[in-house]
């Protein structure tokens, strides 16, 4: 029987939902959209990028029409075509007007486009459906868990097991709770699976934090069930197909203004799910830059009576033994040649049925998830203490406002802020590596793949992945030797605080390897690794490669 352990329960830090900034925001949604539109409009008029407004508009219309034709989605509104045709017509008509009139039309069209985008981006948070969705996830998952883990159907209503038995929250949860009271929190998690959005939603409410707003890929709204949960969990929509400057500016303004209003936010800074299985290295700087801009604007607007709220960045690392989409993701990664193009979403998350099956499998088999909540940082990546004070490397308190000061005053310097975003992004990546928790399954994948590499030094990656079956068998004793060497190295890294290690990795080698091999990608049709007698057999090189990538970036390759 399972040992009854003391469970941590977190109380809500702001029990009255009415006071949540997100509730305030959704209450005057309309006014907020106006505000966002106005500010984006002013910003866009200032930034010219060497093009006239007319050229900018023509380009936007052209790209939008191309997108509608090349890559339509179910979620796209029906009036899209007429809208863009109308913009185009009026733009063409106005070409012959006198300069001043023409400009007036151009600006009007720009505003219309921005407004449409803002309307599309804006979330539809509803307090009541948030409550419902939240209860549904917690209750539903917990019931499912009990039904399947504790003997049979009657235990459906047992309270013995909860979701938090399945999902381990480690790291510094108290820190994020403290910071959410002191200022505005921006959570930046790693992104491997579409499940992350729901998982993080659960983590946020489990920790007793008010709802966060977050940018979710518009493609996820294609699915009704996801759309419902995401809307009610505070999602706003990010459409990766739209890369025109007008859209990007509107999106950034939306995020920046919501932060200034004190809405806790969540970005997946890697942009999309990691295709290769590697921890994000290159972060998307666009949304991240809004944290720095918003913080600077808040400092500019602060007064003696009303001190600026601080923005805190909290990295979060999610660890799975298994990523449902791995086969599709890695294939895409391998196929992709350089440039990011439009691509069709063709992976395991395309139908509600598949998700349901996945969830069922997830809850019926013993494969745990760990979520590491990192230490809070300020907008330049300096750690902050429980009071929210930024600390420099020696532990002295510094004021982030000073980063924006030149000759005694705050000034706006976009190039400087761009550089700050880079510094912040680098800090986040460092933290990701630090909080990454090595599971036995990750290490098994890494060991096996690296051994294949060693055995075939002449082959490049693509040929290696195409090795015939008879060449993908490893002697167990050899495997164990290499595995132990790597584990030693990882434990050394852990002692230096450079990576986290799951407890189950520290048991006897045979046991840990067995568990690792068994858990690695356990729900895939073809498990990447199996142990047969004294052999480790690789059944799927591609997914093995995917899981092995998780351990890249620690300089482990020298030790095999």
């Amino acid at each position, binding site marked *: 029987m399972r040992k009854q352990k003391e469970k941590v329960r977190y109380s809500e830090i702001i029990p009255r939902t009415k006071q949540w900034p997100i509730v305030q925001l959704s209450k005057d949604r309309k006014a907020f959209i106006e505000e966002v539109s106005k500010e984006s409009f002013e910003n866009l008029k200032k930034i010219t990028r060497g093009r006239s407004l007319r050229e900018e508009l023509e380009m936007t219309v052209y790209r939008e029409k191309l997108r509608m034709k090349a890559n339509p989605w179910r979620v796209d509104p029906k009036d899209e075509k007429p809208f863009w045709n109308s913009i185009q017509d009026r733009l063409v008509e106005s070409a012959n007007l006198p300069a001043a009139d023409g400009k007036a039309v151009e600006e009007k069209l720009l505003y219309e486009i921005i407004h449409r985008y803002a309307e599309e981006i804006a979330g539809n948070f509803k307090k009541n459906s948030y409550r419902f969705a939240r209860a549904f996830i917690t209750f539903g998952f917990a019931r499912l868990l009990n039904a399947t883990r504790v003997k049979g159907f009657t235990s459906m209503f047992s309270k013995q097991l909860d979701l938090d038995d399945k999902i381990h929250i480690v790291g510094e949860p108290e820190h994020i709770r403290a910071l959410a009271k002191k200022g505005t929190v921006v959570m930046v998690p790693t992104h491997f699976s579409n499940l992350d959005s729901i998982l993080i939603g659960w983590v946020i409410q489990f920790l007793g934090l008010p709802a966060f707003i977050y940018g979710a890929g518009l493609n996820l709204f294609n699915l009704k069930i996801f759309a419902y949960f995401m809307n009610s969990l505070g999602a706003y929509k990010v459409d990766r197909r739209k890369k025109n400057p007008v859209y990007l500016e509107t999106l950034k303004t939306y995020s920046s203004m919501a932060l200034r209003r004190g809405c806790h936010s969540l970005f997946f800074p890697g942009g999309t799910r990691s295709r290769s299985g590697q921890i994000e290295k290159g972060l998307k700087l666009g949304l991240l830059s809004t944290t720095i801009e918003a913080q600077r604007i808040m400092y500019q607007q602060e007064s003696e009576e009303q001190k600026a709220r601080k923005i805190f960045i909290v990295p979060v690392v999610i660890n799975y033994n298994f990523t449902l989409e791995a086969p599709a993701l890695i294939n895409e990664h391998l196929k992709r040649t350089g440039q990011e193009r439009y691509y069709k979403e063709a992976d395991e998350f395309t139908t509600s049925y598949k998700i349901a099956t996945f969830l069922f499998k997830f809850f019926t088999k013993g494969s745990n998830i760990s979520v590491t909540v990192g230490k809070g940082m300020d907008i330049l990546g*300096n750690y902050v203490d429980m009071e929210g004070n930024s600390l420099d490397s*020696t532990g002295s308190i*510094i*004021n982030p406002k*000073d980063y924006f000061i*030149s*000759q005694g005053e705050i000034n706006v310097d976009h*190039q400087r802020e761009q*550089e700050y975003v*880079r510094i912040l992004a680098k800090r986040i990546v460092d933290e990701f590596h630090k909080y990454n928790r090595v599971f036995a399954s990750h290490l098994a994948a890494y060991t096996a793949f690296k051994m294949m590499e060693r055995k075939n030094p002449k082959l490049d990656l693509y040929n290696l992945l195409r090795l015939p079956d008879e060449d993908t068998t490893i002697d167990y004793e050899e495997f164990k030797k290499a595995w132990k060497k790597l584990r030693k190295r990882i434990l050394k890294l852990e002692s230096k605080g450079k990576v986290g290690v799951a407890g189950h990795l520290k048991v006897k080698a045979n046991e840990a390897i067995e568990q690792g091999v068994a858990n690695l990608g356990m729900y895939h049709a073809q498990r990447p690794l199996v142990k047969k007698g004294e052999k480790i057999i690789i059944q799927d090189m591609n997914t093995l490669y995917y899981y092995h990538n998780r351990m890249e970036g620690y300089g482990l390759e020298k030790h095999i």
Partner: protein
Amino acid sequence: MVSKSTSNKPIGVIGAGSFGTAVANILAEKNQQVWLYARTPGKAEAINESRTSNGYPIHEHVTATHDLEQVGRSCDVIFPVVPSANFRELMKDLSPYLKPYHILIHGTKGFDLNVNRNKIDDQNPLTREHVRTMSEVIKEESSVVRVGCLAGPNLAREISEKKPAATVVASHFDEVIRVGQNLLRNDRFLIYGSNDLIGIELCGILKNIIAVGAGTIAGLGLGENAKALFISRGLVEMVQIGKALGGNAQAFLSLAGVGDLMATSYSNLSRNFTVGTRLAKGESIDDIISTMEEVAEGVKTIKIINELAQTYSVRCPITETLNRIIHKEMTVDDAHRYLMKFPFRAEIDFD
């Protein structure tokens, strides 16, 4: 040119060596007050009394001090110009008085070794991880992020004699370049800007190796052809190891690369060049160092680069032979015979 002060705040220069003094004098032309920090109270006093530093007269706007706190608190912009061996220690002392609004532009052309030497062996060779450029030291030891460096053909004596010159201010921040230009530019001192901070720092550091070598050629009296041969081979070597350490090839063709290399490899005013000429005359490195008034960064750099070149498998025949000379494994004569036989390859990949 009309000099306009950009800020009423004093400007700080840390390190009253010959280059620090030269920088302070240039700054004083456009700024009302320049603090020149000297390592001991006695030295600061002596400078203020004699109105000279390192043998050069100082501008009336320059005041020497031994108070780091005063420099840190009163200045927004500070120029640290101290030998690389003392740089980290200095930053640790200065750090309590630094805030994120500070701008630091350093003028030190050497590496900081950030590792216990006993831990370095065959198993665990010296890597880029273990060496820091000065801008990296500043960022590690303080909360300052707006960091830049000064590099270029800037022989201190000539600057003090008010001869024309130019320099490069490199920083990731346009703001830092702008500030550097505003504070330093005058009608005989041109300032170029560059965003390749690490590349420009590496230029300044690596050229010292070649300057030592050029000094040996001059010391042996081998003539200008030989020297030109040596310097151009040396430039290739600089680019190759520089790229391995994270620099761009382009930086080496700039004023801070070729420009500085020319000036130091042809001048008795250069300390590193002088080390070379004295080595050629048969003096031992220890004697040379102990009798020099200021640090020749090149000697320390040769040892570090020699190790890094092995780690990264970059052929650096010049650095390698100079390292042997320093360690008395080879005479200067032998070294030159060896290099003349060495099958150099000249290709540089500029991508």
